[in-house]
């Protein structure tokens, strides 16, 4: 990947392309996902990173992951099976079409409420759902410049309270001000923060999407995150705490 990611980055003309994570597949051919973006714009306080995703099963060749519309995304979320590992695989989702009183059985007609979701679409939906709940950054790292672009803050000098959840924010809310908020606004108990004050390293693990890990080092002011997992939300979290 040392070689293939820079190649893909220059091919796609992106400013930054990093490994996002690894989605485990049932047949062993896991999907490596890379996330790239060019610009991030801020409208008021909302930040949108126009992120493009690429997937690879061998680390050498990266393929585009096209975005998916909201309807298909809503259907894909219902699937609770692990990814199969075959990008051409098709899942059928039962979804009563809006407006029909009784969905007809699938054998009769195609517009009966059974929809097909391909694995590639499901990949995108999985990544999107993980990113919506995670995508953590240290607060104050990104700043909006005069052109309403969100850029790294050159004068970021570290977090004051790296052992508190309030110091970390979701990417989409990176510009929120104020003392509260950040990850502390998430469902209580969905983050596990461990701060080693001697080494100055904070490690955040998500309990809602187990497998998401974020680290922040206060000595060299670096941070990063990675997701390795099935991509399924942990719906039993309330029982597990």
């Amino acid at each position, binding site marked *: 990947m040392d070689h293939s990611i820079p190649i893909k980055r220059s091919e796609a003309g992106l400013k930054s392309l990093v490994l996002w994570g690894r989605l485990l597949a049932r047949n*062993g051919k896991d999907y490596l996902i890379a996330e790239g973006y060019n610009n991030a714009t801020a409208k008021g306080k909302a930040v949108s990173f126009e992120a493009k995703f690429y997937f690879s099963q061998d680390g050498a060749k990266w393929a585009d992951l096209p975005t998916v519309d909201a309807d298909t995304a809503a259907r894909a979320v219902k699937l609770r099976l692990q990814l199969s590992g075959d990008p051409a695989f098709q899942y059928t989702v039962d979804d009563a079409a809006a407006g029909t009183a009784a969905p007809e059985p699938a054998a009769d007609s195609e517009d009966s409420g059974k929809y097909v979701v391909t694995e590639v679409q499901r990949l995108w939906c999985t990544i999107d759902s993980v990113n919506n709940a995670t995508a953590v950054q240290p607060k104050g790292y990104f700043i909006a410049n005069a052109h309403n672009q969100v850029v790294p803050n050159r*004068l970021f*000098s570290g977090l*004051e309270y790296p*052992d508190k959840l309030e110091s970390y924010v979701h990417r989409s809310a990176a510009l929120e001000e104020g003392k509260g908020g950040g990850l502390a606004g998430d469902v209580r108990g969905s983050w596990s923060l*461990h701060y080693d*004050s001697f080494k100055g390293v904070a490690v955040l*693990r998500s309990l809602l999407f187990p497998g998401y890990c974020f680290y922040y080092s206060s000595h060299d002011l670096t941070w990063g995150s990675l997701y390795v997992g*099935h991509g399924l939300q942990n719906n039993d979290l309330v*029982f597990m705490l």
Partner: protein
Amino acid sequence: MASSSAAQVQEALALLQKTSSTDGGSLYEQLTNLIVKVLDEKPANPVDVLETALLNKKAAGGAGNTEVVGPAASIADTARTVAATKLFGASDVPIDPETGEPVEVDTPNEYECEDILGDAALFDALGVGLGRREMMDVALAVKKLGEDPRKAVATVRFFGKFFGTHADYYVFETTLKSPPEEPEQQPGEAEVPLEWNSGSNGYVYWVSNYLGGPLTQLPHVTPAQIKAARSLKRLLTGRLSSAVSSYPVFPGNEANFLRAQIARISCTTVVCPAGLFVVNEEGGLENAEEYSQLPAREMGATANWSHRYPHLKKQGRCVVHKREAPEGEEDSFEWTEEEQEEGPEQLAALEGDEEVGGGAAWSPLFSSSNEHVKNQVAGLRSNLWPGAACACQGSRFTNIYVGWGVKNAPFVPLPPPPVSREYDAALVESAELPPKPKPEGDGEGQDE
């Protein structure tokens, strides 16, 4: 003319004086301060000062320095890192403070363990496990555990790492040189007795929160704890004394819960290449005489691996405990369903494992996506206990578990118990008249 330019000047000044909502002050103020500073200090190259002076001032609100002071290093964290460094190198000889002479240290214990760094390379090739750097610390922690003469272990294996919400657990699996003797069983116990030093308690487990830290021995697991752990889905907190669950009641604290999960995980996911061991007469395992290594790629198939540890029955034991039939009823006495369970035979192939979530219970792992790369490592990862993996290359094989200690099975919380009855008789209105009061001549008048 003059008025319009004056108006323009006023506008310009107003724009410059607009205060920003993020940092205090306005552009006008900052520029003024900067010019004052330059005039005061008269640096050699005022232009070069512009960027750093202005931006530094702005970021810090004009007063303080830009260094952010994080929380001070706590003693506990410092001690943890120091303990990890103590793993390395030769151990320090403690010096008796009174005499100044080195204290006699007991000779280190003799123990056996696997080549942990070699195993780490296998897992690293597959992309699972802890990674080579952490496994270096693990190998040294195993050495420290093995050499401890007070613990007197015979064999040590690194079982794996459990994540917790506040701290993690590193678990080591050992056999003791002199296992404690079984206490006398009390006759007539209603509970199923635990297996002492065999079956689910064949190994003794030690845990620590960080490598180099103090090791705590986990107690033996009882069948009741295993059954209770099966109905729970909990995350570990990292503290062995935490309470586990109030409903369903778990008989024990987190140390017992962790031990129960270890028992379940090890009985399900510790595997060995098929054909490597055979069952000998006493029911134990011994090396098979003829064992031919399969080409590396084929070790990714479940047919080529078999379970190593005995199967954990529903009762919570590996060997089912059947109550003794009372004399005279030996033929007609019926055992419960649990006691009649037979379970798969020892060294059962992994192919027979039930499906998990609509697919196989194990997924293959290969070190290379290309089949023709030589010297590959192949292995399996479990879909039932996410985090359990095994690896094989040539004649070496190994197992590890790195995960949350949570089973990948649909979880249904135990429903509340049925409402208990308060009255023996049903609450039905009685159609009879209330009993007639006794005549007053008895001396105990009743009000009714």
